[in-house]
C-alpha cells in the first residue's frame, strides 16, 4: 500500500478519535458559560446586527431586510473561512510534541482541526439561519433544495486550503506573515459587506478572488433558492483536486515535518 493510501486509510480508521477530540474541544471552549456553544451563533449575530446597521446606513440601503440576509449569510461563511485559514500556521506547531514523539499520521491533526472548524461553523450557521428567518423565512427551504452542494463545497474547502497554506508555510515561514494581511485585503475587496455591483467596473476582481466563489455560491443558493450548478461542480472538482494535492504534499512532507515544527 502506498504512503498516500496509508494516510487515507488511517484518516478513515481514526475518524471517531479525531471527531471526538474536536467535539471535546468545542464543548470545553464554552464549558463555564451559561449559554454554552450558543455563543458561537450569538457572536456572529451581534456582528451582523452592528455591521448591518452601520453599513446599511453608510450605503443608504433601500431594502434593509434583504441587505441583512445578504450580509448575515456572507459574514457567517466568511468568518468560517477566515478562522480556518488563520488557524493554519498553528496546525502542526500546537501538536509538535506528538509529531516528534508518536507515530500518529499527521493527517490526524489536520482532520481534527477541520472537524473543529466544521462543528463551529455548523453550530453558528444554524443559529444565524434561524435568526435570519425573521427577514427571509425561505432560507431553510433554500438550504435543503439548493444549498447542499455549495455547503459541501465550503466544508471541503476549509479542509484542504488551510492544510495547503500550513504546509507551504512550514517550508517558507514568511508565508505565515502574509496570511493575515492577504486575508484582510481579500475581505475588504470581496463583496461581503456590499453588493458586487457596487464595485462598478472592478466587479471582475471578485471572480479572481479564490475564496469568494466558495462563499458566493452558497450565499446565492441560500438567498435565491437557485443552485448555480456549473459553478458548484467546478468548485467541487477544484476541491477534490485541492484535497488530493494537499494530502499528497502532506505525505511527501511527513519525512521532514518532525524537524520543521
Amino acid at each position, binding site marked *: 500500500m502506498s504512503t498516500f493510501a496509508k494516510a487515507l486509510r488511517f484518516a478513515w*480508521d*481514526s475518524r*471517531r*478519535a479525531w471527531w*471526538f*477530540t474536536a467535539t*471535546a*474541544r468545542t464543548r*470545553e471552549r464554552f464549558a463555564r458559560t451559561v449559554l454554552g456553544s450558543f455563543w458561537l451563533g450569538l457572536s456572529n449575530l451581534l456582528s451582523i446586527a452592528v455591521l448591518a446597521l452601520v453599513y446599511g446606513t453608510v450605503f443608504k440601503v433601500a431594502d434593509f431586510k434583504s441587505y441583512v440576509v445578504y450580509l448575515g449569510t456572507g459574514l457567517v461563511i466568511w468568518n468560517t473561512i477566515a478562522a480556518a485559514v488563520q488557524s493554519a500556521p498553528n496546525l502542526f506547531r*500546537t501538536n509538535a*510534541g*506528538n*509529531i*516528534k*514523539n*508518536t*507515530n*500518529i499520521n499527521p493527517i*490526524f491533526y489536520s482532520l481534527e482541526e477541520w472537524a473543529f472548524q466544521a462543528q463551529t461553523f455548523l453550530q453558528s450557521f444554524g443559529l444565524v439561519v434561524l435568526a435570519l428567518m425573521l427577514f427571509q423565512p425561505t432560507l431553510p427551504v433554500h438550504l435543503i433544495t439548493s444549498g447542499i452542494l455549495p455547503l459541501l463545497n465550503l466544508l471541503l474547502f476549509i479542509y484542504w486550503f488551510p492544510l495547503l497554506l500550513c504546509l507551504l508555510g512550514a517550508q517558507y515561514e514568511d508565508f505565515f506573515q502574509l496570511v493575515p494581511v492577504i486575508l484582510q485585503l481579500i475581505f475588504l475587496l470581496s463583496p461581503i459587506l456590499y453588493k458586487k455591483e457596487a464595485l462598478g467596473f472592478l466587479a471582475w476582481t471578485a471572480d479572481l478572488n479564490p475564496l469568494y466563489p466558495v462563499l458566493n455560491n452558497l450565499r446565492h443558493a441560500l438567498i435565491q433558492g437557485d443552485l448555480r450548478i456549473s459553478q458548484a461542480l467546478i468548485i467541487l472538482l477544484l476541491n477534490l483536486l485541492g484535497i488530493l494535492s494537499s494530502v499528497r504534499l502532506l505525505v511527501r512532507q*511527513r*519525512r*521532514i515535518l*518532525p*524537524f*520543521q515544527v
Partner: protein
Amino acid sequence: MTLASDDSKPVLELRDVWLRIPVNTREVRTLKKALIRSVTGGALRKTSKGTEIEALRGITCTIHHGERVGLIGHNGAGKSTFLRLISGIYVATTGFFRASCPVYPMIQKSFITGPELSGLQAVKGHYLLMHGHLRGFPGFLQEVVEFSELGDFIHLPMKGYSEGMSARLLFALLTSSSHDCLALDEGFGSGDARFYERAQQRLEQFITTAGTLILASHSDGLLKQFCKRGLVFSQGQILFDGPIDESLTYYHEHFC
C-alpha cells in the same frame, strides 16, 4: 550478529540506513560545527540545500521476533533517533528499512488532547485512536483511573494537574495495552517517588508482555534485566552488535 534463532521471523530489517536532518533555524546556523556535533552526536554536512546533520549513518541490522535488544550509548549517540526511525516517526533518508509489524514508540511525553480537556477525555481519545470504537472502554478507564490514583480528578481539565498527576496518567494510559513490538526510551517518566515502585512493577510486566523489545537506556541493570542483545551507538553509527554483556563491556572500555 543476531542472537535469535534462525527460524524466527525478522521484525525489523535495516540495510545501510541513513537519516539526515535538515538544520533550518538561524540559531543553529550560527553555532559552531563542533558544538552541534557534541549536542547531536551526528556529523554535520553541507549540501546545496543547506546544512544537514547525519543523525544515523549507515545502520545495518536485523531484529527478529521475540528479541530483546538494548541500545547503548552516550547522550546524542543516536539511540532515540533509532527508536523514532523504527517506530515510523522519522523516515530514512536513504537505505532499506522494513518493519513487518507496527512498532509502538514509548517515548510519548504528552496526550493527544490539549491541556484544556479533562483526563477522561484524554483517555477516551487515546482509546478511540487505538481501537476505533468504545467497546470495553469502561473497564479500561477504571483500570487507568485506579492505577494512576487520580480518582475524581479524572473529570477535571489537565491544565490543573500537577506534573506528577500528568505523568502518572500518561504512564497508566500507555502501559495499559500490550504491543507486538515496543520501542522504549528509559527517560519515559513515571511520576513521583511513592508511585515509582508500583510503576516499576507495572513496567516490568508491560515489557515482559511485549513480543519484541528495543530498549534505549543508560542503566546497565535495566539493560541486563530485560535485554539479551546490545547495540552500541556512537555518532549515529552502530559500533558493536552482540550479547548484552559483551556490548556493555565494549561500551565501558571505549567510552567510559
